[in-house]
C-alpha cells in the first residue's frame, strides 16, 4: 500500500505537470499513437471485413490470418519494422506495428458481424428488390454493429496497452516513465505511469462502449437482450 501511495504522490506532484516530458504531454503522445493506429486500422479492416462477410469470399484464410496475427510478438514487431523502415521513420514503423495489432479484432468483428446475420434476413432483403449496396448499408452493416463495436473495444484496449512499448524506440508516451523508472528503481514512477495507462484504457473502453450503444440501431440493440431470445424460441415453437 505504501508503494501505491508513493505512486499517487508521484502522479500528483507538481513536476509532473510542467516542462518537457510532463504527464499531460506523455498522455497526449500516448493517445496520439493509439488514435492514429486505431483509425488507420478501421479504414483498412472494416471494408475488407465487410467485403468478405458480404461476398463470403476468402473467409477461410481470414480466420487463419486473424488468429495468427494475434500471436505476433508486438515488441519484436516494433523493433523489426524500425529496422526495416529505418530509424528516421520509426514513428511510422511503430504506428504500423500498432495498426497490425488492431486489425485482427476489427476484421474478425466485421466479418463475423455479417456472417452471424441469419441468411433468411438477407435473402428477404434481396427478394424485396434491395440492391447489393442497399443490403450492405441498410441490413448487414447495422445488424453487424454489436460485433464490430466489440472488435473495436478489443482493438482499442490492445493498442492503448501496447503503445507503452514505443518508448523503447525513443517515441515517448506513458511507457517512457515506466521503462525509465524500472532501472532507476523508482517504482513510484513506474506504477504511477502504469496506473495512468490503466485509467486511459478504462476511459477509452467506456467511451467506445457508449459510442456503440449510440451507433447501434434501436432495433438491433433491443434484439441483443434476453427477452428477445425468449421470443425467438416461442416463434420456433409455433413454427
Amino acid at each position, binding site marked *: 500500500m505504501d508503494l501505491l501511495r508513493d505512486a499517487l504522490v508521484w502522479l500528483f506532484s507538481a513536476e509532473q505537470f510542467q516542462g518537457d516530458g510532463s504527464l499531460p504531454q506523455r498522455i497526449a503522445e500516448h493517445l496520439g499513437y493509439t488514435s492514429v493506429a486505431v483509425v488507420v486500422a478501421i479504414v483498412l479492416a472494416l471494408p475488407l471485413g465487410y467485403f468478405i462477410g458480404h461476398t463470403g469470399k476468402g473467409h477461410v484464410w481470414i480466420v487463419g490470418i486473424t488468429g495468427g496475427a494475434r500471436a505476433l510478438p508486438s515488441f519484436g514487431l516494433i*523493433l523489426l519494422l524500425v529496422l526495416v523502415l529505418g*530509424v*528516421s521513420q520509426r514513428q511510422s514503423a511503430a504506428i504500423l506495428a500498432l495498426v497490425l495489432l488492431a486489425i485482427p479484432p476489427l476484421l474478425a468483428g466485421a466479418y463475423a458481424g455479417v456472417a452471424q446475420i441469419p441468411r433468411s434476413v438477407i435473402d428477404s432483403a434481396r427478394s424485396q428488390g434491395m440492391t447489393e449496396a442497399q443490403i450492405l448499408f441498410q441490413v448487414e452493416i447495422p445488424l453487424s454493429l454489436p460485433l464490430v463495436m466489440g472488435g473495436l473495444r478489443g482493438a482499442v484496449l490492445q493498442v492503448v496497452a501496447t503503445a507503452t512499448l514505443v518508448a*523503447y*524506440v*525513443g517515441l*515517448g508516451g506513458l511507457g517512457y516513465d515506466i*521503462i*525509465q523508472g524500472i532501472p*532507476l528503481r523508482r517504482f513510484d514512477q513506474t506504477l504511477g505511469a502504469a496506473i495512468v495507462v490503466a485509467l486511459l484504457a478504462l476511459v477509452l473502453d467506456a467511451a467506445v462502449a457508449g459510442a456503440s450503444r449510440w451507433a447501434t440501431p434501436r432495433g438491433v440493440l433491443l434484439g441483443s437482450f434476453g427477452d428477445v431470445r425468449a421470443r425467438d424460441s416461442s416463434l420456433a415453437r409455433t413454427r
Partner: protein
Amino acid sequence: MKSLRKTTGLTGLALASALVFTGCAADSGSAETVVVGSQAYYSNEIIAEIYAQALEGAGYTVERQFQIGQRDAYLPELESGAVDLFPEYTGNLLQFYAPDAQATKADDVYAALESALPEGMTALAMSSATDQDSYNVTAEFAAANALESIGDLAALEGLVLGGNPELEERPYGPDGLLETYGVTVSFSGTGDVTVDALVAGELSVANVYSGDPRIAEYGLVTLADPEGLFLASNVVPIASGDWAIELASVIDPISAALTSEGLVALNLQSTKDQLSAAVIAATWLEANGF
C-alpha cells in the same frame, strides 16, 4: 564387545588417514586442473576462453564452467574455491561488494576493489580494456570538431545526448555532463535505437557500452573520460585462493595485451561473423603472439 570397539577405533583411524591422504592428493592434483568460469554474456565468455586456452598452452588442465549467470550465482563459487579464475569488470564488481564506493577512475576503482574483495579472492592485474558506459560520437563529427575527450564538447552548442530513458536521471547523464565537463546537452531517450539514431544524425552524442561491437561496425569514436564521470569498469581476472600468484604469470600478459579496441573487435567477431568463442580466442592468442 571390547574387540568390536577396538576395530571401530582402527577403522576410524584408517578412514581419517585416508582422508588426510586424499586431501594431499587433491591438493597436488588440482595444481594441474584450473576451473575457469564465465558469465552468461558472450563477451565475457570469449575472455574466459582466452584465459582457458592460454592456461592449456602453459600445460594446465582446464575445466570450463561457462555461462554461470549473474554475480549472485557465481561469486560464492569463486569465494569458496569451486571456481578458480573468472573474468570480471572492476567497477561493476566493486559496486557489488561496496555499493557506496566513491571511486570512479580506473586506478582508484582497482585499488578500492582490491580492499573490498572478500578473503580468498584476488584481483590480478587489470586490463586497459573496458566494458562500461561511455559517450560516443560519429567519426565525422569527431573529426569536424576535433573531439577526443568529453570535455571537448563544451565548446559546442545544440548537442543532443541519446541513450536509454534512465540516462536522463543518472549522475553521469545531462546533469553530470554539465557539472563535470561544462557540457550542455538536451536529452533524447532513444532506448534500443540509440546507435542507429546517432548514425542517422539525430543525436550528436550517444551513451553506448564501450565493449559494444557496433562501435567498430559504425566507426564510432569513444570520448575519453579523464575526470571519471563514468564508473570505470576494466576487465580484470579474479583468481581464488592460492592460485593468484601462480596464474598471474600466464594471465597478466593477456591482460596487458587486451585493449578496448581489441575487445570490441573480439565482440564483433561474435555478433557479426557468428564465430564461436573457441575460434575467436584461438585467433586472438595467435595474433598476439601467445
